[in-house]
C-alpha cells in the first residue's frame, strides 16, 4: 500500500526533522514532530505554526460563464463576492448531501477553488460533469501549486518580513497576489485554526525554499515558529468548530444538519437547494452538536451516543482532548430533541456510558472574531 501514497515536495524535510509520517487522504503526511501534538497546538495559538498542506487540491475556473457556472455548483452566492475576496462554501449533490467543503477565491481574471485532498478527484469530476452548456475552463492545478499555511497571532508579523506588500491592508477573508522571497505567490488571509494567519499558494518547485525561509525568518526576528503536524491541525480546527470532511460532513449529511446553513444562500440557485428547502420544511432528523464529558475519558470518532436512559441516539464524529480549552469533548450527531445546550447525554466509551452534556459551539472563539 505505502508505495501508492503520494508525497509532497517537503516529504524528505519532514523525515529529516523527525516528522512522524502517516497515511492521510492518499498522502504520506507528518502527523507530528518531536515536540508532540499538544505543544504544537499551543505553539500555534501562542505564536506561529507552519503547516505543509500541499495534499489539498486547487482548481481554477475561467471563462465568460465562470461566475454563473460556479454559482450553480456551490451553496454560497459568489455573485456577492468582491475581487480578492475568499469565502467558504459547500458543494452538494441534488439530494443535499455534501460533496465537499471548499474555499473560493475571487482572483483577478479567475476563480480559485481549494478543496480537500481526499475529494479532489471526485470534486474535479463533478465540476467537469456540470460544465456542459457553460463557456468555462475548469483546470486542476494541484500538482503545480504548492500550499502551506502560516497560522497564529505572530504569523502576519513574521511573514511581513518576506513580502513587499503591507499585510495590514489584507483583511480577513481576502487575498493578495504578490511575492514571498521573490517567488510569485497568492496569499490568503485565511486558515483553519481559529487564529489569524495566512494560506500561501506558489509554484510547487519552490516549496523547500519558501518553507525553510519562513522557519528561519522567525528566529531572526525573535518570533517563535515551528512546523505543525496533522494531529495538532485537527485539534486546532476542532476547537473553533470548523468541520472536517469525513467527520462533521459527508455525502450522507446536509449543510443544515451540520449547522452550515450560514454558508448557503437560498436566493442563489445552487445544486441541492430544493432538497435543503424541503428539509427545512420537514425538519431535521439529526443535528450536529458539541459535547463535553463530565466523567473522565476520551471520546473518539464512531463511539455511540446514548440517552441517559441508555437508548442509542447518535454517534461521535470528532472526539478528543482539546488542549486550549482543556476539556475532553467532541462533535456528534443526535436527534434534534437532544440538541439543546445543557441536555444530558452519554458517550459510550468501550461499552461504558460516560456522562456528557451538550455545549454551545464553538469551544474556542476564533481570534479574528474576538
Amino acid at each position, binding site marked *: 500500500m505505502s508505495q501508492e501514497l503520494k508525497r509532497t515536495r517537503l516529504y524528505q524535510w519532514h523525515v529529516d526533522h523527525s516528522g512522524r509520517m502517516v497515511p492521510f487522504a492518499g498522502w504520506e503526511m507528518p502527523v507530528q514532530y518531536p515536540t*508532540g*501534538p*499538544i505543544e504544537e497546538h499551543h505553539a500555534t495559538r501562542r505564536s506561529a505554526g507552519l503547516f505543509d498542506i500541499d495534499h489539498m487540491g486547487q482548481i481554477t475556473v475561467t471563462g465568460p460563464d465562470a461566475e454563473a457556472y460556479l454559482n450553480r455548483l456551490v451553496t454560497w452566492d459568489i455573485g456577492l463576492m468582491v475581487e480578492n475576496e475568499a469565502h467558504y462554501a459547500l458543494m452538494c449533490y441534488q439530494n443535499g448531501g455534501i460533496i465537499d467543503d471548499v474555499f473560493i477565491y475571487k482572483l483577478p481574471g479567475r476563480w480559485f477553488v481549494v478543496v480537500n485532498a481526499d475529494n479532489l478527484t471526485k470534486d474535479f469530476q463533478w465540476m467537469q460533469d456540470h460544465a456542459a452548456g457553460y463557456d468555462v475552463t475548469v483546470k486542476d492545478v494541484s500538482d503545480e501549486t504548492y500550499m502551506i499555511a502560516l497560522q497564529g497571532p505572530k504569523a502576519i508579523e513574521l511573514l511581513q518580513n518576506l513580502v513587499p506588500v503591507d499585510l495590514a491592508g489584507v483583511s480577513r477573508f481576502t487575498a493578495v497576489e504578490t511575492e514571498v522571497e521573490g517567488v510569485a505567490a497568492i496569499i490568503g488571509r485565511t486558515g483553519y485554526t481559529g487564529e489569524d494567519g495566512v494560506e500561501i499558494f506558489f509554484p510547487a518547485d519552490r516549496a523547500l525554499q519558501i518553507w525553510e525561509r519562513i522557519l528561519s525568518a522567525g528566529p531572526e526576528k525573535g518570533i517563535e515558529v515551528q512546523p505543525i503536524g496533522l494531529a495538532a491541525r485537527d*485539534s486546532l480546527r476542532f476547537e473553533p468548530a470548523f468541520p472536517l470532511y469525513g467527520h462533521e460532513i459527508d455525502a450522507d449529511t446536509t449543510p443544515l444538519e451540520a449547522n452550515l446553513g450560514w454558508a448557503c444562500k437560498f436566493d442563489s440557485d445552487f445544486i441541492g437547494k430544493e432538497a435543503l428547502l424541503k428539509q427545512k420544511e420537514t425538519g431535521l432528523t439529526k443535528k450536529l452538536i458539541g459535547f463535553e464529558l463530565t466523567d473522565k*475519558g*476520551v471520546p473518539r470518532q464512531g463511539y455511540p451516543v446514548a440517552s441517559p436512559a441508555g437508548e442509542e441516539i447518535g454517534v461521535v464524529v470528532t472526539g478528543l*482532548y482539546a488542549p486550549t480549552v482543556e476539556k475532553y469533548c467532541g462533535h456528534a450527531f443526535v436527534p434534534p430533541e437532544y440538541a439543546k445546550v445543557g441536555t444530558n447525554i452519554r458517550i459510550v466509551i468501550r461499552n461504558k456510558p460516560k456522562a456528557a452534556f451538550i455545549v454551545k459551539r464553538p469551544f474556542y472563539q476564533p481570534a479574528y472574531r474576538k
Partner: protein
Amino acid sequence: MNLDANAKYQDSHEWARQEGDLIVCGITDHAQDSLSDVVYVEFPEVGASLGKGEVFGVVESVKAASDLYMPMSGEIVEVNEALEDEPELVNSDPFGAGWMIKFTPSDPAQWDALLSGDEYQKAVEAEG
C-alpha cells in the same frame, strides 16, 4: 532507549519494579514515545484482583487508545491519581512520576519470568 535498571519488562511495553512487598507498574519510555502525548489513563478499581496478562487499564494518547496488561497476577492496592490531572507525566517521567498502579503479587515467582532490560530492548528491536 531509556530503561530503568531496577525494573523488569514485558513485551507489551509495561515495566514492573519491586517496592517492598508490592509491585509498581507503568509503561516504558519506548512505549510513551511511540504513543506520543498521553491525555488520559483509565485505571482499575483499587481492590481488583487481576491475572497476569489481563487488561488493567487503558492509556489514551492524542490519536489512540491502548490496553495496559498486568505483568504479574495480583490485587490492586493503589493507582496513580496524579495522572488524572497530569497525564503528561507518563511522557515526561515514565519510570518515575508516571507510574500507573501498585499491586500485591499473588504469585511472586512470576517476577522471574519477566524480561530483563536487555531482553526487552532486543524484543523492541525485533519489532522494528
